[in-house]
């Protein structure tokens, strides 16, 4: 369990909201800010701070689009795809390790 806590603590995606953003983006590529708000059920301020952290890490890009009115959109980067895939792999490995050591 310590390995799992360590992984979550030391990774940008250790936070469930950030992981949720990346998993929602993976099949879609880009989404509107308001769609993320609806799916993740967080406040705009909370989501904004997590998106800024992901942008700083180079996992996403935040930009403006003209929809029904100017909107904020988010797109996943190549680095974001790679890191999310790596994180999922690490998570699977850690969980498998914990389960096999307890059996």
């Amino acid at each position, binding site marked *: *369990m310590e390995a*799992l806590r360590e992984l979550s603590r030391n990774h940008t995606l250790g936070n469930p909201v950030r992981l949720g953003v990346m*998993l929602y983006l*993976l*099949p*879609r*590529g880009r989404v509107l800010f308001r769609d993320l708000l609806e799916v993740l059920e967080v406040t705009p301020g909370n989501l904004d701070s997590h998106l800024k952290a992901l942008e700083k890490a180079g996992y996403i890009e935040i930009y403006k689009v003209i929809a029904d009115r100017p909107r904020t959109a988010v797109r*996943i980067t190549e680095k974001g*795809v*790679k890191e*999310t*895939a790596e994180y*999922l*792999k690490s*998570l*699977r490995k850690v*969980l*498998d390790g*914990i*389960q096999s050591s*307890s059996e």
Partner: protein
Amino acid sequence: MEEVRELKNVLERVEGKLIAAGKMYGAMNFAVWLAIMLLYYVMLGIFDIPWQFNLIYWPAAFIVATSFTGRVWERLKRLGKAVDREIEGSKISGILIMASWITGIILGWGIIPRMGVGVSEGAALAVGFLSFITLSIFGMWLVFARYSGVEREIIPSFLIPAMGIPIAWNMETGAMVWAGFTVALSFTLTILWYLHSAFKAIER
């Protein structure tokens, strides 16, 4: 331990949804080609279309469909990375897929109909059309199998047209329409199989 099991369960469900998204994109890809082909048949029934129309419709349709396929391909690459089914050498595989379609076009529309195959002119065209679909999609399937993994869902879309070739060969009339329906059936089965796989991945 209960927590770990629960987390693994969540992770597996997430992966299942990502796999399902990939399967749905596969289905959409075939649905676009099916719609383009069926739209052509619908227009044939409504308008008195000259043969020159083919020179505009099919290149335009090819551009629309390949741009859609390209976008789907990008998404499949992303999803492949996340679920450990990365499409290796995506540039090479993209070129090989294009090569299989170009080979299919040259053989199916250029060479085979001029080889005197079939009992009539319509039969020769139908044999060429079915050969084009068979060769192009079989080539694409081989590339997927080599670089990403075997996509069983694609099998009906080249196997059924291949089985239709000897039947179209002996048709004196209506061979081209019959070939069109055969291809439409094969693509529909592929779409259904993709959707079935998607739901299976979600429910696993």
